[in-house]
């Protein structure tokens, strides 16, 4: 058999890759919405970890309950962040995070 049995480490690998890609997106992209997408990737990788441990690590349903709260917070975070980004664009005509360097007009 070429591949081992699907287990905990497979899911952890996927979440590690997603987390690193999210970090990469957050630190390299200039567009604020791309930074938000990176944050969503990071939150998804955390959720995969929670649910993988709830299946294989004996957490049972507690991990899934925590994952629900992560999804709730991700939704409210995206809403607030996009409102702020829209407001920044209205004020400064740019959404590049390296050009937004003042908090007033």
């Amino acid at each position, binding site marked *: 058999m*070429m*591949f081992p049995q*699907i287990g*905990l*480490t*497979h899911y952890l*690998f*996927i979440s590690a*890759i*997603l*987390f*690193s*890609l999210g*970090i*990469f*997106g957050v*630190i*390299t*992209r*200039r567009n604020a*919405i*791309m930074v938000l*997408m990176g944050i*969503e*990737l990071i939150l*998804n990788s955390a*959720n*995969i970890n929670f*649910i993988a441990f*709830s*299946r*294989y*690590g004996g957490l*049972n*349903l*507690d991990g*899934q*309950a925590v*994952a*629900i*709260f992560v*999804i*709730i917070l*991700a*939704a*409210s975070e*995206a*809403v*607030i962040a*996009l*409102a702020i*980004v*829209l*407001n920044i*664009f*209205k004020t400064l*005509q740019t*959404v590049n995070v*390296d050009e937004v360097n003042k908090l007033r*007009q």
Partner: protein
Amino acid sequence: MQLFDIVFYLFAFITVASAFVVVFSRNIIYSAFSLLFTFFGVAGLYVFLSADFLAVTQVLIYVGGILVLLLFGVMLTSRVVDVQMKTGTMQTFPAVILTAGLAGILCGVFLVTEWKTLPGPELKTTAPKLGEMLMTTYLLPFEIASVVLLVALIGAAMIARRERPAGSEKNSSF
């Protein structure tokens, strides 16, 4: 290799490959649409982990809510008729080294650690038990989450629709 493994690797490949496209694509629209496939792949992985309610929630909230919101943000903040859809990057080379090192360290830790795995019982349906837990063990976080959502709703509406004083500068770009 059984069918289960093949489908798992398929979902894992979809997730990781489209996440790569999200991060490395120069066009922000391509990034947003491949984020769709990442979310669907993650939902498939949730099904493999016998978290059916979470999978449906993922599709509903991430794909139906957050992704649409991100697309609205893209459309409202970039001039679609121009070539402004391209987004720049900064410090790509150090970031590649840093994140590759991070991924390597994480994978190494995951490999080396002796996880005390005990495969739980195959859960049939998780939704009734999860609902019970939300009303008993997690009642306080549940209520706080509802307040957080309400605050986010009102706050987002207030931030995005702030009226400027009449004397301040007018934006002529729209």
